[in-house]
């Protein structure tokens, strides 16, 4: 027990989620007779969910800041159809199309941010209006038709890394990415240990770190192996790559930068944040704008994957993204949540969906199961918090001190400390 504590030390909430994800994968791997962890299926998993996960990144920031965004599906659809039309009618190259799509996202985001932050209308209302507004724009601009996009644009939604270098029987770029990921994990762990030491904080014993690293690196390498050994011509998919970059960037912004910390401050206690000199209006504006930019990106990726833009793209995406964020441990009241957590939450839903489809469970039952999972995951969290406990694993380790937590993702603790002191 002591060893386990040390291994998962500090980051219990997140490890609980990851543990649930792993359990789910193992369960489906057995139940589907080995169909879950095949190269083809893991590639499908990322291709088919990357746009939802990208939305979840934006959504967690919105929710941390204490808002909600219901318009993301419509915004995604509007940006998707606009870009598809522009490429079709004006013949602009794909990269200009993407650039324009992001720009459109900025404009839409500025619109919603303006009403939310500066006029002070609740984001729920602003984005409810946006949901109607941009769905209408989508169907108006596209005349409710399906608009195809050319093959080079499809690359962002369904493309793979090129084959390059010697023939190894693997996709070489995927291997390189995997090794880079391993190197990154190791280096950042070592740096955080060093930093903890220099600050005089307690550092876990070397074997704990090594075991943890072996587990994480093993997982990364196994994933790399799966991605690199798919059908020739496939690799780690491009939408997955975009997602990975965004996770790194937003993980860093939310936990390490001033702007990122301000989002938590505003969401946790707006007045306290303002009194401490945080410009809450600016923070709210940026958070809403960022969400629309990411929604635009997700819409374009989906259009690329679908090879065409359609009048009902993005219907219900906002709810998928919101579900991912809440399963990932964010609080409805704001101030709590992490990017990584939301991604894990989104993956839980994705694996569940994929596994149930592989089992051939009908769409009706799938919805029932997903609904229950969402409710139970959040209920579990709420119950534990109301009991002053953190989670099952946290409960088992309640004697385990907080002294050595120098984890980049551990953002919940500050809020909880504030809450307890208040």
């Amino acid at each position, binding site marked *: 027990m002591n060893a386990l504590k040390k291994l998962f030390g500090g980051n219990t909430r997140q490890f609980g989620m990851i543990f649930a994800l792993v359990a789910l994968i193992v369960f489906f791997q057995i139940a589907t007779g080995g*169909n879950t962890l095949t190269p*083809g299926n893991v590639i499908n998993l990322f291709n*088919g969910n990357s746009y939802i996960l990208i939305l979840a990144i934006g959504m967690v920031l919105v929710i941390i800041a204490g808002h909600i965004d219901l318009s993301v599906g419509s915004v995604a659809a509007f940006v998707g159809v606009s870009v598809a039309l522009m490429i079709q009618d004006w013949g602009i190259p794909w990269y200009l199309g993407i650039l324009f799509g992001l720009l459109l996202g900025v404009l839409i985001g500025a619109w919603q941010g303006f009403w939310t932050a500066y006029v002070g209308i609740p984001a729920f209302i602003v984005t409810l209006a946006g949901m109607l507004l941009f769905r209408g724009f989508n169907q108006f601009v596209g*005349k409710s038709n*399906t608009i195809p996009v050319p093959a080079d644009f499809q690359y962002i939604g369904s493309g793979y890394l090129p084959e390059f270098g010697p023939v190894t029987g693997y996709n070489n770029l995927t291997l390189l990415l995997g090794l880079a990921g391993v190197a990154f994990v*190791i280096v950042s762990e070592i740096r955080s240990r060093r930093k903890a030491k220099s600050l005089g904080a307690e550092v876990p014993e070397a074997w704990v770190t090594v075991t943890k690293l072996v587990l994480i690196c093993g997982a990364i390498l196994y994933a790399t*192996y799966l991605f690199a050994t798919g059908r020739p011509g496939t690799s780690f998919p491009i939408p997955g790559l975009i997602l990975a970059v965004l996770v790194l960037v937003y993980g860093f912004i939310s936990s390490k930068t001033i702007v990122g910390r301000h989002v938590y401050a505003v969401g946790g206690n707006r007045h306290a944040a303002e009194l401490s000199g945080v410009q809450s209006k600016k923070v709210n504006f940026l958070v809403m704008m960022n969400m629309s930019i990411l929604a635009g990106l997700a819409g374009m990726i*989906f259009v690329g994957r*679908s090879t065409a833009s359609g009048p009902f793209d993005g219907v219900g995406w906002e709810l998928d993204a919101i579900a991912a964020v809440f399963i990932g441990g964010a609080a409805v009241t704001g101030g709590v949540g992490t990017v990584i957590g939301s991604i894990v939450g989104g993956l839980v839903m994705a694996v569940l969906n994929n596994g149930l489809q592989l089992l051939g469970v009908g*769409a009706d039952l799938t919805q029932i199961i997903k609904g229950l999972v969402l409710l139970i995951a959040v209920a579990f969290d709420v119950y534990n918090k109301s009991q002053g406990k953190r989670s099952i694993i946290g409960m088992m380790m309640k004697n385990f001190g907080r002294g050595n937590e120098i984890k980049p993702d551990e953002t919940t603790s500050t809020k909880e400390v504030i809450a307890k002191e208040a």
Partner: protein
Amino acid sequence: MQMIGKAGKAAAIAAIAALALTACGRSDSGTSGGASSGAEAFPKDSSIGVALPQKTSENWVLAEKLFNDGLKGAGFKADVQFANGGVSEQQNQISAMVTKGAKVIIVGAIDGAQLGTQLKQAKDAGATIIAYDRLLLNTPNVDYYVAYDNFKVGELQGQALLDGMKAKKPSGPYNIELFAGSPDDANAKVFFDGAMKVLQPKIDDGTLVVKSGQKTFEQAVTQGWKAENAQRRADTLLAGSYGSASLDGVLSPNDTLARAVLTSVKAAGKPLPIITGQDSEVESVKSIMAGEQYSTINKDTRKLVEHAITMVKDIQAGKTPEINDDKSYNNKVKTVPAYLLEPVIVTKENVKTAYVDDPVLGPLTK
């Protein structure tokens, strides 16, 4: 510093072990390609995927049951899925079918142009793809198309309208109004064009008069196939153009819209016009028995599913499935070989024989 050494070593060992354990690299399985003639193309107990759209109408629920029973009866593993969550769910379902090794995938698309990536994936894995009821567009990766002949549906509707009005009033001119389906459904235009092939010459020679002047598809459309939209348009037309004139006939693309128009006519206190329909909905069959709606179209789902399953059996046996149209259905990339079933027009005259085998509609005609 000593720790770095340890961690580094451990990672390196893990890396080497992972690669060494699995040094086989890529497998080339799953690219067996098309059917070779004569021999069985794939084992008889293979998985067959059926991806259907939203479970919104009786037709699709019936199709699900028929596919399940029919494929299992033939010895296949049936994998029938509905995509209630929309296009993205259908995409994931098709991917999952490929993962499960489906040898034939039958696709009733929500949007026929948004599945290109998944169809390519299926094709690369060696599956045969059959478009069911709705054509798959903008992709080379579709092998067959099986559906009812929708242009023929339109022609039958147009002819029924003419026949019905003639029976009621031996000579023209007749006042008619035109209704079409939703513009985002590729079939809607086909129905309309089929009907207009019959009606246009009569409009040109003055036998038929469209009093509102709304004769084009764009003017006649009904967004989303929604009854409320058709009813609102009918209200407007009646108030605008039929204050004193009588409305003799209405071209309606399906039963739901036909009943909506009839509701509007009744509300306006006008005599009921001859009106066409399609789909053999229960309410409309009752309406035909009562002498209100004039005609509907019988597109028996049983026959359509039966033929799709026959195609699967042929493909399994290494034979080329029977087709009866190899030039009409161009999906913008290739001309898809199609098997078209003949729709049947149903009026009060033949309603008893038309549904004699139908367990639901049969009793209604007694």
